[in-house]
């Protein structure tokens, strides 16, 4: 007989921090879904695979560096940089191959194309690598000052949460103040009009995919370090969860993606902690169903006006 859930404060905090960590990673990946949806109204189902490819790239780079005797933070930084660049190249290419030729097609066509891309990339990695789970070294450094709190929050959790906060802040700044960010907002509101004032919309869309994929790669490195193993299919379930987070928060909205990620992370964490770990996914998707019934546009989404 199990003794049932504990109800003390430490346990609550542990679950809260666990949910925050998990939610942060969902948020990082959800940002890519929400940005792409905001601009071309496409659910990029291959986004989860981009995150998986980021994690694999980091693993390969880290293994090579470690074999050559490199250790410490430099491995993390180099592996992350290569993963980000590689994933961004994949995101860029996927858009050019699978979505750009279908820009004028009915909305269902690019969606099917996205699902096809997702299946293709999974199988490509399955053949090129292996179907087994591969151990992923924890690349994140251990911070000595977190030692006394390690029963509630370890260094890994802290680094994940801080990285997400930093990445979200940088993205917000980028979209609000830079030239390209303004072009993105203009394209999201009225693609035709943006072209008429001279915005190169194709380039804006490419850049959106690049930025979203780079964020997914960062998420890939973080989550792989946290969980400690990866295989070709990790992109699928995490992708679905991150997509759920984007819809929860209100797809198309950047603060919405972050909020949705956190709400989803906490729901899963508390549900598994206090009820049962067998029903983790059930709770996540029940939450989605409830939100869609009572707030179809998501927590922060505006009730959608169909664009002409």
């Amino acid at each position, binding site marked *: 007989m199990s003794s049932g859930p504990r109800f003390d404060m430490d346990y609550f905090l542990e679950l809260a921090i666990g949910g925050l960590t998990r939610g942060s990673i969902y948020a990082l990946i959800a940002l890519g879904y929400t940005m792409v949806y905001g601009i071309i109204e496409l659910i990029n189902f291959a986004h989860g695979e981009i995150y998986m490819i980021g994690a694999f790239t980091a693993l390969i780079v880290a293994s090579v560096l470690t074999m050559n005797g490199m250790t410490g933070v430099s491995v993390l930084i180099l592996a992350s940089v290569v993963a980000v660049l590689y994933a961004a190249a994949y995101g860029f290419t996927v858009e050019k191959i699978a979505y750009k030729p279908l820009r004028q097609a009915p909305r269902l066509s690019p969606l099917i194309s996205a699902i096809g891309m997702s299946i293709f990339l999974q199988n490509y990695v399955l053949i090129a690598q292996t179907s087994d789970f591969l151990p992923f070294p924890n690349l994140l450094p251990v911070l000595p000052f977190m030692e006394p709190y390690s029963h509630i929050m370890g260094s890994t959790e802290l680094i994940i949460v801080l990285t997400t906060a930093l990445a979200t802040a940088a993205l917000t700044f*980028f979209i609000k103040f*830079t*030239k*390209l960010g*303004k*072009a993105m*907002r*203009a394209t999201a*509101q*009225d693609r*035709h*009009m*943006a*072209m*008429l*004032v*001279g*915005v*190169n*919309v194709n380039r804006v869309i490419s*850049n959106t995919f690049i930025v979203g994929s780079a964020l997914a790669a960062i998420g890939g490195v973080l989550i792989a370090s946290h969980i400690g193993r990866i295989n070709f299919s990790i992109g699928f379930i995490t992708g679905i969860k991150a997509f759920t987070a984007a819809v929860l928060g209100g797809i198309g909205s950047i603060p919405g993606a972050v909020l949705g990620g956190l709400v989803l992370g906490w729901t899963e964490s508390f549900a598994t902690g206090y009820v049962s770990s067998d029903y983790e996914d059930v709770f996540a998707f029940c939450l989605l169903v409830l939100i869609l019934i009572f707030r179809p546009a998501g927590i922060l989404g505006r009730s959608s006006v169909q664009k002409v």
Partner: protein
Amino acid sequence: MDSVLTVNSLTMNFGGLRAIDSVDLEVRQEQIVALIGPNGSGKTTFSNCLTGIYEPTEGDIFISPTPGGRRRINGIKINRIAEMGIARTFQNIRLFSNMTVLENVMIGRHCRAKAGVLGAVLRGRKTRREEQEIVDRSYEILVRTGLADQADEPAKNLPYGAQRRLEIARALATEPFLLLLDEPAAGMNPRETDELEELIVRIRDEAKISILMIEHDMRMVMSLSNRIIVLDYGEKIAEGTAAQIWENPDVIKAYLGEDFHGDA
């Protein structure tokens, strides 16, 4: 005077429907040319052909942004045509309504800026200087169009007349040689129309921009236009000065109605 826009026998078919039938048109430097005609006569289709939204079925569109430089622009991408110097406003307002007034104009400067993505990320001195220049130039345009006080307001909060002026300001920001105004006075009260007229004349005289205007407000068309072209069912039925159009019986019949002079 040199012509900045020459359209030769432009035809546009949509399936079996001929929306524009072999229309010629010329706009010369610093002229205001008006395109008029009843609803559904093909005016908006015509301007969509000029800005690259439609590719004409037949005919040629030539532009001369600089004297002597002549170029055919049929089928060129919309944003490239904007870069070449044709800007337009819309019959129904199409501002980026969630962005501020200043940002709307800054977007228009976009195609004149050189710094790329890398510049935007690294934010070197050159990029920052260029961004400052974009802000300064955009603000200057807002001053000229009388919108400087509302620079930081979201565009959707502006009163109607000001939103129409902002559309013109955004178009000016792309530094066009030719400005296409699609019913700029639609829905305006007489005072706003007067201000608009004054603005259009100033754009032509100070910024040296030629203007092609689609308009229903006859008073404005008559007082501003150097030349007027009348379309009916996609065909050009008359062309001339305000006085000539005013006298043309075909025009009166097709467009103004049989009794127009009696009513006015």
